[in-house]
């Protein structure tokens, strides 16, 4: 699976995310279905990188692997100098807790909890005291423009508002890296633009490294620093925009 590296990959300890020879094979019954084959790239710290590609190109699989939700079949992922493959299950949980924040297409908010409670939810597992949780969550909701909606439940919020809650939740543990998996997939084009704009804003103001999977090439080209195109589980092209 793992080929010799054809193109030289920029080396250096300063990469926020470094992916080398990454492969993921799903086993469906007796058939092996490769989702990713020999993917390598690097994400600079503080950059906003978009991963584009058609459905089934392996974008979401890539993001789940970088997010520590899944484990690779081959290759390595290094985030802030740490190899995810060397982490235990608990180590990966700690990484997900404070090393990375995730945003999903379907928001994945807890429907029975208010916006504020959803944002503070990750802090429960970090053992942060209640008063501090409240404070941090409220301040983040304010930053994503939802100060007045903190007592609302997800069902009472629009799609864009729900995604803002999810963004606040992703940031609450102050991770250096945020992964967004099709964050605009369930939104109309105007709201989608607002959400990506918010991510770009956060990238600038907080020096946050963002890796966003999207199939909306136009939005990616408008806001991202770099665009990686995946096709059939491989990197098709890598483009630096600014």
């Amino acid at each position, binding site marked *: 699976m793992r080929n010799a590296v054809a193109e030289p990959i920029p080396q250096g300890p300063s990469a926020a995310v470094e992916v080398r020879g990454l492969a993921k094979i799903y086993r469906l019954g007796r058939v092996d279905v490769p989702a990713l084959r020999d993917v390598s790239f690097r994400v600079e710290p503080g950059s906003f990188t978009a991963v584009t590609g058609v459905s089934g190109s392996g974008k979401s699989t890539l993001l789940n692997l970088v997010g520590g939700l899944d484990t690779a079949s081959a290759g390595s992922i290094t985030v802030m100098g740490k190899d995810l493959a060397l982490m235990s299950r608990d180590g990966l949980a700690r990484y997900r807790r404070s090393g990375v924040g995730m945003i999903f297409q379907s928001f*994945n908010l807890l429907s029975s909890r208010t916006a504020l409670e959803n944002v503070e939810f990750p802090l429960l597992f970090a053992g942060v005291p209640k008063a501090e949780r409240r404070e941090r969550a409220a301040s983040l909701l304010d930053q994503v423009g939802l100060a007045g909606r903190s007592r609302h439940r997800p069902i009472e919020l629009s799609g864009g508002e729900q995604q803002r809650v999810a963004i606040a939740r992703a940031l609450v543990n102050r991770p250096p890296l945020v992964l967004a998996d099709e964050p605009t997939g369930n939104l109309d084009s105007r709201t989608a633009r607002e959400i990506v704009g918010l991510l770009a804003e956060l990238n600038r103001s907080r020096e946050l490294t963002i890796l966003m999977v999207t199939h909306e090439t136009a939005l990616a080209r408008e806001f991202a620093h770099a665009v990686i195109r995946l096709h059939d589980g491989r990197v098709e092209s890598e483009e630096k925009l600014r």
Partner: protein
Amino acid sequence: MRFRDQLELSLSNLWKVKLRTLLTTAGVVVGIGALVSMMSFGTGMQKNVTETFKSLELFNSITVFPEGSGPGGSDPDRIDPHQPRRVPAGTAKAVLDDRALDAISKLRGVETVYPDVNFPALVRFNGREEFRLVQVLPAKIAGSRMIKLRAGKPYLSDDADEIIVNDYLLRRLDVKDPASAIGKRIEIASVSFDLGRLNPMDFSSIFQGGKLPVSKETYEFRIVGVSENMGFGPGSVWNELMIPPGAARKIKKLPFTSIWDIFRLQEGAIGYSALNVRLSSPGEVDAVKARIKEMGFSTFALADQFAQVRQAFFFLDMILAAVGMIAIFVAALGIVNTMVMSILERTREIGIMKAVGAGDGDVRSVFVFESSIIGFAGGLLGYGLGWIVSRVINRVVNYFLARQSLPAIDYFAFPWWLFAGALAFAVAVSLAAGIYPAHRAALVDPVKALRHD
């Protein structure tokens, strides 16, 4: 994760599915309730018997019988009628007379010895008559804890013409208020042999329908005390009329009270049919028993029987607990079912927990907490249910007992360990029931759980 956060998270999860939580908890409540009432019944019965034995000082009493006679000689082989009676070698058949009484009362550890003397008599009071056995009881015993008085006081002298009457007999004599009988006169009519008319060795004339060779005499006593009817009556003090020995000696009465006495009468020496021995402490029972046996008498001590009683209670408790366990087992299955269902429904939530950084342990403990909370609440309410059910049963049973003029008894006991044990057991069972579902929850794959369809 902090303990308080964990508790709040689990409680809010349970609150979201109120009805299901309620039903699952109800299962535990019923199970623990059944177990608690069963155990408290077993404990209560044991406590009743033990305390009655203690309050009647039955643990420090020995009854002495002449060799080979009397009820329940303590050696089982003597009960077998085919076995020859064994008399200790070299001793003549020992007679339970005043000399023996004197010898026994001088043994170390012996407090009081008094003969077990009963005689039949006709009681006349309040215009009514009843046929009863009168017990001769020394003033020392009448004034002891063995006799509980409902009204009045015990007689203080062994020679007083005073009598203690049992409240049950009073009711039969149509006296409603026991206190009203105090100080009243009661007539005791006893029968005795009219020696002028009969050769006491020739009983055949009686059985052939001849005129009874007896005479009847009436004596008057003053009622000084009314004793309580004992709920449990295994012992020597259960007669309904008690008089002091000095007064008894003045009464002409039949020299026997049982068939045994008639046989022994033919053998010659008669003595007493039994002696009641009271010891200074229960610890002296074995030593005194051995000494009395050396004198050639047989003994009976309730303390011996009590070991068997305890064993019987142990089995009773085990059976009751086993019945309760079945209910608990069913409740535990209910918890497993609820938790497994809940995990299936909450797969996405578990995925979210993991995505935001919950470890396997965090996920596991959320579910273990939930089942433990069910167990704790179930244990607490179950204990309450068990208590209420026992109280109701107790009320009903005692209502019927009271209608039969029997004293109220508390059939259930609720010692502190029953509460602590019920709660601990409920939590432990729920914890055990929660382990498998929690383990499954911890293994949920977040990628699959969060996949949107």
